[in-house]
């Protein structure tokens, strides 16, 4: 295991992200509605009088041990008790991140528990209904569950599974890590005021023309041919995805880390050093590349745990060194398998990749910039969420970093809640097709269309031209034809 002095690559410059959020009202801070958050290892607290030992991490920290024990004990009890009623339990396949979960709704709070790593660990969260009301956040249990799972996956990406810590022998180190990670990441967590966005958890792709995309593919092919040690590549332009070779299980997590943490923090120096913009650089790791000193301490590259299935069988976690190279708004993320004994990524390799990529990448980036710069998308008079589960592609006018603007104000909390309820109650997860029109009490229309598992949600503000169902149906078909023609078939 790498030492704890590893660069704090996941939380640097948290202040800038916070500033960012205060201007955008699409999101709220998770911590503002949080009642408690815990990670427990039930097997450690089996002995009488040592029940508190099952608590691995608890937020808020000031909470008394008794209450912590009580909360985790209750969660464990809920899980065990409800187990009795699960006749045909879905076998938790190793190959997916669909964790077993339980939800509990009390008068004051909404609880979600997930069982992870062969049910050895229990993670739980409770959100306060009152605080959610204050923050105008509609509580939607699937979204809370997704936020909880995402928090776990983010930890796993940087540190590996909980089980890998062998916590029985090394309890304090495990707790240190959990504390180190979650005390910093939980305060930074954001929830969309439209909880559906957190629930779907897709990534935003950049739409571009075929010939231009060919440039990207050809550049990546050339790069991988030249540097065969590069195992996986991901290509972003601004904060949108163009290309990836990662497992779908990792994609949303790493995408979120890059677009919400790493890239926003790297834009600062880019704006200052405007004179040398066409020059590429690495966002992590050493600045000085001309020497051959080993990469140690602050200069070492981040290590991430990603799923791999190169033998074509089940996916398994594998450690990778992450190289993030950026030039003119485009970011190439490269992953090189990490072995403790072998010599890993060296300055020499970084130097060679830099030379290989620099001019070509800036050319490709320039072309992308020209193309997307020429397409000015008009603001829409409605809100939308589009999600394709097979590609994980998601676009929405309600996401926090949405480029596609809408001139309509953000829908009120009851409309957002109604959207969630509509999806939860009328649109089945297992069905590939579905359609639903709902009118809110305040005359907002919600249109949900599901075709071939692709989901489109339209949120249309009150207007005189949309009073009847026929009106809204014709408006819907108009919107689909004009805005979602390429990605959504009617």
């Amino acid at each position: 295991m790498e030492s704890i002095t590893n660069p704090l690559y996941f939380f640097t410059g948290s202040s800038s992200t916070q500033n960012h959020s205060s201007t955008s009202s699409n999101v709220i801070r998770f911590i503002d509605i949080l009642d408690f958050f815990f990670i427990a290892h039930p097997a450690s607290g089996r002995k009488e009088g040592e029940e508190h030992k099952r608590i691995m991490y608890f937020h808020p920290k000031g909470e008394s041990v008794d209450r912590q024990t009580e909360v985790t004990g209750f969660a464990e009890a809920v899980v065990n008790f409800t187990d009795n009623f699960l006749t045909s339990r879905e076998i938790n396949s190793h190959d997916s991140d669909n964790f077993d979960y339980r939800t509990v709704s009390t008068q004051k709070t909404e609880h979600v528990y997930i069982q992870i790593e062969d049910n050895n660990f229990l993670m739980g969260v409770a959100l306060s209904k009152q605080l959610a009301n204050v923050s105008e956040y509609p509580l939607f249990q699937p979204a809370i569950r997704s936020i909880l799972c995402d928090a776990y996956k983010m930890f796993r990406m940087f540190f590996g599974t909980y089980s890998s810590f062998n916590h029985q022998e090394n309890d304090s180190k495990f707790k240190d890590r959990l504390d180190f990670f979650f005390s910093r990441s939980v305060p930074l967590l954001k929830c969309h005021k439209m909880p559906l966005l957190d629930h779907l958890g897709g990534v935003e792709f950049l739409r571009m023309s075929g010939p231009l995309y060919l440039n990207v593919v050809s550049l990546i092919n050339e790069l991988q041919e030249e540097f065969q040690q590069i195992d996986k590549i991901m290509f972003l332009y601004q904060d949108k995805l163009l290309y990836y070779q990662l497992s779908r299980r990792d994609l949303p997590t790493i995408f979120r880390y890059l677009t919400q943490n790493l890239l926003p923090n790297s834009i600062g120096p880019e704006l200052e050093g405007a004179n040398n913009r066409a020059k590429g650089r690495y966002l992590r790791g050493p600045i000085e590349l001309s020497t051959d000193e080993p990469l140690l301490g602050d200069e070492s590259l981040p290590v991430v745990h990603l799923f791999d299935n190169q033998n074509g069988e089940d996916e398994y976690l594998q450690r990778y060194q992450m190289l993030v190279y950026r030039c003119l708004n485009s970011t190439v993320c490269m992953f090189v398998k990490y072995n403790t004994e072998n010599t890993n990524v060296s300055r020499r390799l970084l130097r060679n990749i830099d030379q290989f990529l620099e001019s070509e990448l800036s050319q490709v980036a320039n072309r992308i910039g020209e193309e997307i710069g020429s397409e000015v998308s008009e603001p829409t008079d409605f809100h939308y969420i589009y999600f394709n589960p097979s590609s994980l592609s998601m676009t929405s006018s309600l996401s926090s970093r949405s480029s596609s603007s809408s001139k309509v104000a953000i829908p009120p909390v009851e409309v957002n809640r109604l959207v969630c309820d509509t999806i939860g109650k009328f649109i089945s997860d297992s069905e590939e097709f579905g359609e639903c029109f709902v009118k809110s009490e305040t005359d907002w229309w919600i249109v949900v269309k599901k075709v071939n598992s692709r989901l489109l949600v339209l949120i249309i503000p009150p207007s005189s031209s949309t009073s009847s169902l026929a009106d809204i149906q014709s408006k819907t078909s108009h919107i689909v034809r004009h805005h979602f023609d390429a990605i959504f078939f009617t």
Partner: protein
Amino acid sequence: MLELGLKFINFEPDRSFNDGNITRNYFDASSQRICTMRNNGALGLTSKSLENDKITSVRTRDRGEPSTVKFSVDGRLCATQRTATSADVIFLEKTENNLCLEMTVTAKSKEPLLAVEWVANNQLLLVTNHSAELLYINEDKKTSKVLKSTNVNAAWAIFYAPSQLLLIANGASCSNLQPIIVAHSNFTRMKNFEVDFGGSLSRENFLEKDATIATIYGKVYVMVLRYSVRNSSMLDLYEMPFDATNPAIFKYSLILGFNGQCGIHVIDNLIIVHHQPTCKSLIFDIQVSSNSKSHSPLVTTTIEPHIQHQPPPYLYTPFWFTFLPNVVIDSNSGIMYSLDLKNSKCMIEISEKNTMLEYLIRRKNEKKLFITSFLNCLRARALSLRQIRRIFSMISKTKESFAKNEKDSKAPIIVLNCEKYEELQISQQEMQSSILIPLREDTSLNEGYVANIMLQYLRCLYDNNVQPESLKLSTSAM
């Protein structure tokens, strides 16, 4: 990679007999003819060329030993200089008592002549120390008339017939060059420019023999041999502009790696420098890494004689004289040879496959050889994807995209003309049938590799703004 004597022609070598008979040979670079004078023409004037079989054989009066012999473009007139101040025009097709008719011309000032050159069939150019004069020769009346004259100081002058470019050297060390276009019965002065010839106390003046003019890749270059006391010599290339408003610019410097005299050829846009003491020939291609000023030889090789010469002739002898573009004259044995490229040997001589292929792309009439070599390299996976893309990009340009580039540079009035360079183009259908389909059908190749090659090709088409023709077969492979 260089072959001597694919074409050759015999002539009577220079000699002086005890009986007073003498034979002298002259090479006229403009018409590319070798002229043999026996007893100063009294026993015969014979001229031959490698390019055609036409042999002129006449007799003239013996009026002293000429210093130059020049033939007009149509080969009907011959100008020869027998005294310092005058030139004689010999009418090769008009005889009287078996002797050709002649007339004598001089410059207006009667000054010594530095150069006598044919500009057109009936236009003779005379250069003296202070002027250049263009004369019209009236064959019927046997008179001459000054069409145009211009005052210019000249230490020496050379004439480059393909572009009708007269290059005059003047200035303190003769290193100031004044280019003049002699066309349409007119003199058009271009911007003069200074060259660095490595002058020092021991080498005061820039000499005529150290300057050469050639057309390379559609541009005219003045090549200057720059000597250095400490290091090896360089061959500097000054690129001539097409218009009269800009001076020539120093463009490339070829590193020769030796000192002293050398022979220069320009064959198929390659500069070939022969070094007699080491029996080596250096081949330079300025398009290889054309962005850098300094160029090392692409290939260092030795000339091989063509198999038809038995016994093989001696090579790099001190009797060799070389003339642009590709003439070698062995004055001892009396043979004029052509020197030709043998591009099929470049697989052995150029080890880097991508350089070798790019070399072949730039050669004239080597499409077939290029396609075979390219396919072989692709099959052997000898190229990286990026190198493949570079090569695709070179061959997938179309005429339209060339024209586009040319238009941009066509702002000023063009005064200098030269042979255009045509890049190799391979049509999409040809690429399909001779490269892509054979690759696809090669079962030993990884499918992903072949698909990547096709993607690179597709990208190059788009990059060059070429509309891809429907590639039915290739798309099904992806």
